[in-house]
């Protein structure tokens, strides 16, 4: 009785899938939005949506006086070396460290990350 999948067909199919997967991986790498390198990329990688965050960050920058990106980045790196962003953000709220962006009330760490995203996008 003839089998449904011959050995040759199976090998060809597997090779085809590998090619498609490879092309897909390469395509996503090529198509993924690229950003000009910034001094804060390690921090900005923590953000879910870097473009959206940059928009929020513009509003944060309008509220925060004397924003110094290097100092802010150093402060955030020091905190992130000790705890996760989630814990830092919740702790900010508990300690009343908040910033506003277009009326949105944000944990300070989240707002400052967004502000760095805005600086990086500028």
């Amino acid at each position, binding site marked *: 009785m003839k089998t449904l999948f011959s050995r040759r067909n199976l090998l060809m199919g597997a090779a085809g899938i590998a090619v498609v997967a490879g092309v897909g991986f390469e395509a996503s790498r090529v198509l993924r939005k690229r950003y000009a390198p910034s001094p804060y990329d390690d921090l900005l990688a923590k953000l879910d949506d870097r473009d959206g965050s940059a928009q929020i960050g513009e509003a944060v920058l309008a509220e925060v006086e004397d924003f110094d990106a290097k100092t802010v980045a150093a402060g955030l790196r020091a905190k992130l070396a000790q705890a996760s962003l989630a814990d830092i953000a919740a702790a900010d709220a508990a300690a009343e460290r908040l910033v506003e962006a277009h*009326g*949105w009330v944000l944990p300070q760490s989240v707002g400052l990350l967004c502000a760095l995203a805005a600086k990086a996008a500028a």
Partner: protein
Amino acid sequence: MSAFIDARTVPDGTVLEPDLAIVGGGPAGISIALALANTPLRVVLLESGGMSFDPATQALYNGNKTGVKYLGLEASRMRFLGGSTNIWGGWSRPMDKIDFEERAWMPHSGWPFGLEALAPHYARAQTLCEAGPWLYEKAEHWSQSEMPTVPLGTGGVATRWFQFSKMRGSLLPTHFGERYADDLKKVRNLTTYLHANVTRLGLAPNGGKIEKLDIATLNGRHFSLKPKAVILAAGAVEIARLMLASNDVMPQGVGNANDVVGRYFADHPIPRDIGTVILFDGKLEPYYLTTQTMHGAILRAGLFPSEAYRRSKAMLDSSITIESKTLLDVLGKSTVATTAAALGVDASKAAAFTLGGGCEVTPDPDCRITLDSERDALGVPRVKLAMKLADSDLAHFRATLKELGRQLLASRAGMIRLNMKERGQWLTGLDWGNHHMGTARASIDPKKGVVDANLQVHGVANLFVVGSAVYPTYGAVNPTLSIVAMALRLADHVKGLLK
């Protein structure tokens, strides 16, 4: 049973001599009349209107206003039996202990009595308001499994509950005139006059007591009362008008030796769409959005600043309600997604809701009622209202909303957007609670108040005022329940005084 008397049929020149005259058939006046049933006192209840709305009677309320955009003076109250309960929303909640205290951060604050003076009367007031079993404090301790509340981190804002008045047969809420008309008619020591307008408080020549009340009707009848005591139980605007307009013996009016009558007028600002609250899991119990019948009462949850928060942060009172589901713009969606992800929370089912609410205002002597040169159909001067609203009061409300947002973030349950910042934003679409307060404020000091701790007008031995007119400060909850409790307290006092 004694029928109500139509004052338009009382012969001109009639003089009635009851023990007590109650001026105003709203919730305060009706509550006092019922509380004095079957006492030896002969009581007369005077109501300007009849049993239903009448445009000519309602027009007696007309007045002028300047300053911040405010409701028409004829629009936010009702001049027929039941008074403003004919249009109230039934929202009920007692005041807090802190509301009565002198607070360093609030100028002109401090009542001449505390919550303990009203506490014994709240249960009966709740019954008269038909607001169901007294659940306010108990509800705050319901378990999360029984009555889930919005999870908030430790802080100044907490879920608390409004109860709602209901009329028999589930109509909402209780209209005191319609509801208690038959009960009033059964009170043998009470005579109720409808269509009877008090046009003058007649002071004795030395100004020390009220000797006579002049009554007029819109069909031209005039008669008078010579009561042993008088309780002004009308609204805050009418009480000020009557006291100021009765200036034939004392040029500044009755009880106004220190120029306090009519000052400190206030209402609760009700700005719309003050914020947007996001709940990351999208879950919100229905009793936050609308009334629900539970535990034998009609309830709705609100978000209130705690007493501890108000003290520690020197804040005014406010109440926040969650109003309806709404949609976010692109930036809003992005902000929610970014914040939730940063907090390590899934926001794929997040839901957004608009926020409403009301806030307390700081007593302001320049927010006031004065007499106008125009006169109404009965010859009584109309009023002018100079309405004000301080930016600092709105800033307090905003700070409390921000505190709510902080607590949502701390619990990783949600977040908030504050829609108001500049004065113009607050004033756009600003509504008011229709809670007229403060024009005959209570104080132990005659220089700072019109009535004393017993609600007796300073310097006028037999004249009392009851209602939100006597509020020295205003809290943020709807006043009717407390007005009724205060009226019952005054009834007890007068009962002892006149026996």
